[in-house]
């Protein structure tokens, strides 16, 4: 075997190895990116699911199919705080529409300790309680849920809102943040990055809440 052939073979092996490394690197990077994008998509889908539920319920504050059962919609909010609210509405419980009976709906944020088994240390349950039913919550990666209340003039009302101030609530600003429960990228052992999505429904008002 001549020296030229040997040089050709070594050269070929080097080129092959280089190409192989390139391919593997591209493949790995592509897998990581796809995982991140899937995580982002999941987070956005979760965010939309939560916001749809919130928008539906909050739009119906003070609503009742039988108006006589809820004669004063301005008294529909029973309790309002930065991360919890209880209000009166007419919930469609069985999919056949509102039944004309006034229900109370209570939203509150659970502690992070409830989801300590997930990798994300910040995720928590957002509970929805209808009347005296057991609290229902799903792990959609919610990391923050906060509300600000404004009166008719757009002036913020101090929280917790109590007593007569509850009737002054005209608009509610809801801020929601959702993160993936699993880290998308591990930069270092202690620095994990989670896909996140942010939503702020600025001044959501309820048509039924005010007598006009």
């Amino acid at each position, binding site marked *: 075997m001549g020296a030229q052939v040997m040089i*050709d073979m070594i*050269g*070929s092996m080097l*080129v092959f190895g280089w*190409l192989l490394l*390139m*391919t593997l690197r*591209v493949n790995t*990077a*592509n897998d990581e*990116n*796809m995982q991140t*994008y899937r995580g*982002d*998509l999941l987070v*956005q889908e979760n*965010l*939309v699911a939560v*916001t749809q539920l919130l*928008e539906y319920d909050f739009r119906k504050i003070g609503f009742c199919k039988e*108006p006589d059962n809820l004669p004063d919609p301005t008294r529909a909010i029973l309790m309002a705080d930065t991360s919890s609210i209880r209000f009166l509405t007419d919930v469609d419980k069985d999919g056949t529409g509102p039944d004309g009976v006034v229900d109370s709906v209570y939203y509150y944020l659970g502690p992070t300790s409830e989801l300590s088994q997930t990798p994300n240390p910040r995720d928590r349950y957002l509970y929805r309680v209808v009347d005296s039913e057991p609290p229902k919550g799903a792990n959609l990666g919610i990391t923050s849920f906060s509300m600000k209340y404004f009166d008719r*003039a*757009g002036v913020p009302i101090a929280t917790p809102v109590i007593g007569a101030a509850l009737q002054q609530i*005209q*608009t509610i600003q809801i801020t929601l*943040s959702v993160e993936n429960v699993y880290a998308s990228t591990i930069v270092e052992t202690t620095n994990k990055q989670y896909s*996140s*999505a*942010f*939503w*702020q*429904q*600025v*001044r*959501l*008002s*309820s*048509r039924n809440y*005010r*007598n*006009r």
Partner: protein
Amino acid sequence: MGLGQSLLSALALALLGTIVLDVNWNTADNGSVIERTEYEIMATSLGTSVIERATGLAYDENTINSDISAATSCTPVASLGPEIGEIDSSYDDFDDFNGYNKVIVGDSLKFKSADFRITGTVQYVQLSGDSVVVSAGQTYNKLLTIRVWSSFMPDTLKFQTVYSYWYFR
């Protein structure tokens, strides 16, 4: 290495290079779509918020404290918009959002999003057959059009709602 082998190597490199570029392009494209969707979710919530706020107000300046018995009692078309001295926080009727123009600035703490611009127009509308058409005079229905855009979004999002004069209980 012979000429044939050199050509094959060059072709292999070119082929692999093309594949790598394609993969990179697809990855960047996917990332762009995901980010754009996030901005669009935010823009949707901002547009919806303005509409929600507007529909919580009185139909017209002249219906805030009293009823009207004729559509001509409403604000004339040329005067739609905020009254003198009214600012965003003191809007008190639906058509104050005519000429609405607001910039929402994002920040890393309170509003984790991009900067958005919101504009609004209000027009009187009426039914013509099955269509809602713009009216030259006052009617009992107003159409609010909200446009939201950002430099990070390729398209402007447009939201519309019709608000009618009604008296509740």
